[in-house]
C-alpha cells in the first residue's frame, strides 16, 4: 500500500474552475516526492485534498490507506502539515506553539530538540509576528513534524527562506526520508525539487505532465539543438554551410544549431568561430537541465 495514493483526482471549484483535472500518482514510505509546477498548477489544491480540507469532485485520494475526509480523526494523528502560509497565532511564541501541538499527538518529538534542530532556539521566546519570514517557515515546519508523522505534507517549505535556512530544511527532509517518513513536497522551485526529491511529478493546469527521478526527467528527451551565444548578426548562412545544419538566430546574439549535440558538430562550430575570430558566449549541449524539461513541458519557454 503506497503512503499516498492519488487516483484520477478531479477538483472543481464553484464557478466551474477546474483546479485538478484527472491527476494520478503515488508516493511510498521513505520517499520524498516533489509535486512541481508553476503557480496555479493545482499543487496546493492536490495537497489540501490529501490533508482532508477538500473532498475530491471525482477520483479518489488515500493517505496511509485512509480517506482524508471520511477517516479524518484517524488520519490526523499520523500526518504532519505545513500550509503554504500562516497557520500560527500571531502572538504565540515558537516554544509555546510546539508544546501546544505536542500535546495533540500520542508520542511527539521533544519541542526543545526540534527547535534546536531547526536553528530556532534563539527565537524560541519571540512572538510569531516578530519572526522573519524564514523563521516563520521553520516554525511551521517544526509544527508539521512535532507529531512524528508517517506522511509529511510540505507546501512551498523554502519560500522566503535564506540560504542557511534552506540547507537546514533540506537536511531535515533527508532525515525524514531516512526514518521512513513519506514527504510530499509541493514546490515551484526547480532547484529544490532537483536537490531533495527522489521523484518528481510535474503538473500544470491540474494535469500530470511528466513523472520520474530528476535524472530520468533530465535525460528523457534527446536534445535536438546546440544553443550558443556569440556576437549578434553572424552570417548564419556561412555557418550553416560549414556545419551542414540549419542555424537560426533565436534573438540577437543567441543562436540555435538545429542538430543533435554531436561532438563533431560542436568542434566544427568552435572552429568556425575561431576562423572568424569571434568570441563564444555560453554553449549548451548534451543533457537538459530540469529547468529545460520543465519549461518545455509547461509551455512557458520557447
Amino acid at each position, binding site marked *: 500500500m503506497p503512503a499516498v495514493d492519488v487516483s484520477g483526482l478531479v477538483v472543481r471549484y464553484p464557478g466551474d474552475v477546474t483546479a485538478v483535472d484527472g491527476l494520478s500518482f503515488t508516493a511510498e514510505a521513505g520517499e520524498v516526492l516533489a509535486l512541481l509546477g508553476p503557480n496555479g498548477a493545482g499543487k496546493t489544491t492536490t495537497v489540501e485534498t490529501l490533508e482532508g480540507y477538500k473532498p475530491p469532485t471525482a477520483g479518489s485520494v488515500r493517505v496511509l490507506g485512509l480517506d482524508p475526509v471520511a477517516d479524518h480523526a484517524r488520519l*490526523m494523528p499520523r500526518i504532519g502539515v505545513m500550509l503554504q502560509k500562516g497557520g500560527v497565532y500571531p502572538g504565540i511564541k515558537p516554544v509555546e506553539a510546539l508544546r501546544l501541538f505536542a500535546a495533540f499527538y500520542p508520542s511527539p518529538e521533544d519541542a526543545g530538540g526540534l527547535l534546536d534542530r531547526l536553528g530556532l532556539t534563539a527565537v524560541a521566546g519571540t512572538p510569531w509576528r516578530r519572526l522573519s519570514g524564514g523563521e516563520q517557515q521553520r516554525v511551521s515546519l517544526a509544527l508539521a513534524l512535532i507529531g512524528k508523522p508517517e506522511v509529511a505534507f510540505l507546501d512551498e517549505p523554502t519560500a522566503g527562506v535564506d540560504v542557511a535556512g534552506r540547507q537546514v530544511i533540506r537536511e531535515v527532509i533527508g532525515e525524514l526520508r531516512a526514518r521512513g517518513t513519506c514527504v510530499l513536497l509541493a514546490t515551484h522551485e526547480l532547484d529544490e525539487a532537483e536537490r531533495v526529491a527522489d521523484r518528481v511529478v510535474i503538473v500544470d493546469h491540474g494535469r500530470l505532465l511528466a513523472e520520474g527521478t530528476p535524472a530520468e526527467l533530465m535525460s528523457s528527451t534527446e536534445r535536438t539543438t546546440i544553443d550558443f551565444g556569440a556576437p549578434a548578426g553572424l552570417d548564419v548562412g556561412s555557418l550553416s554551410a560549414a556545419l551542414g545544419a540549419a542555424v537560426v538566430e533565436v534573438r540577437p546574439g543567441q543562436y540555435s544549431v538545429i542538430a543533435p549535440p554531436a561532438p563533431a558538430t560542436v568542434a566544427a562550430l568552435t572552429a568556425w568561430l575561431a576562423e572568424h575570430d569571434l568570441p563564444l558566449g555560453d554553449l549548451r549541449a548534451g543533457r537538459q537541465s530540469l529547468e529545460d524539461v520543465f519549461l518545455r513541458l509547461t509551455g512557458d519557454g520557447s
Partner: protein
Amino acid sequence: MKRVVAQTRVELALTLRRGESVLLSLGLPVLLLVFFSLVDVLPTGTKDPIDFLAPGVLALAVMSTAMVGLGIATGFERQYGVLKRLGSTPLGRPALLASKTLAILGVEVLQAVVLAGVAFALGWSPSGSLAAVVAAMLLATVGFAGLGLLMAGRLRGEAVLAAANGLYLVLLLFGGMVIPVAKLPGALRAVARILPAAALSDVLHAATTAGAMPGRAWAVLAVWAVAAPLAAAATFRWE
C-alpha cells in the same frame, strides 16, 4: 482531555497577553466602576450609585469577553489560517470549541472576582440571588459568544475589530450598564429592551437588589442564547 487542557491554557495565555483585550475586559469596567461611584453624576436611581454600577459592569465584563474578545481573536485566527491549521491536527472542532468556552469562562471568573472585589471596596452591598447572577451570566455568555462568532465567521479580522468595538460602545450606552434603560428616549428604549445587553443588566440588577425577576429579560437572554450561536454555526467559514 490533555488536548483540551493544552489548548485552553494557550487560549487563556494569549487572551491575557493582548493589551487591548485586557483593557476592554478589565481596565475599562474597573475605571467606570470607580469613576462613576465616586463622581455621582449618573441618573442611576439607586441610593448609592455602586448598587447600580456593580451589576452593570458585570454585564459589561461578560459582553467584552464573550462577544468582543472572542470575536476579534477568532476573526484574526481565521484570517491567519490558525483555525485551518488546527483542522489538520488531532485536536478536532469539538475540543477547540470546548477550549474556547473554558478560556472565556476562566477570564469571566477573573473579571467577576476583580470587579466584585472593587465594588465591595467601594461599599457595594448586594442582596438577592447569587445563583440567578451566575445563571444569567452563563446564558448571556452563550448569546454574546454567538454574536462574536457570527462576526468572526464571515468578516476579516480588522472588520471584526471595528464592528465588535463599535457594538461594545453602543451596547455600553444602550445596554443599561452605566445608564438606566428607563432614561433612554421611548423608541430607543424599546430597541434596547430586546438586545441581550440590557436584558442581562436588568436581570443582574434585579438579582443583586432583591428585586422581582424580570421574566421578559430572561426570555430575551434565552432567545439570544439560542439564535446567535445557531446563526453563527450556519454562516461560519473556517477558512
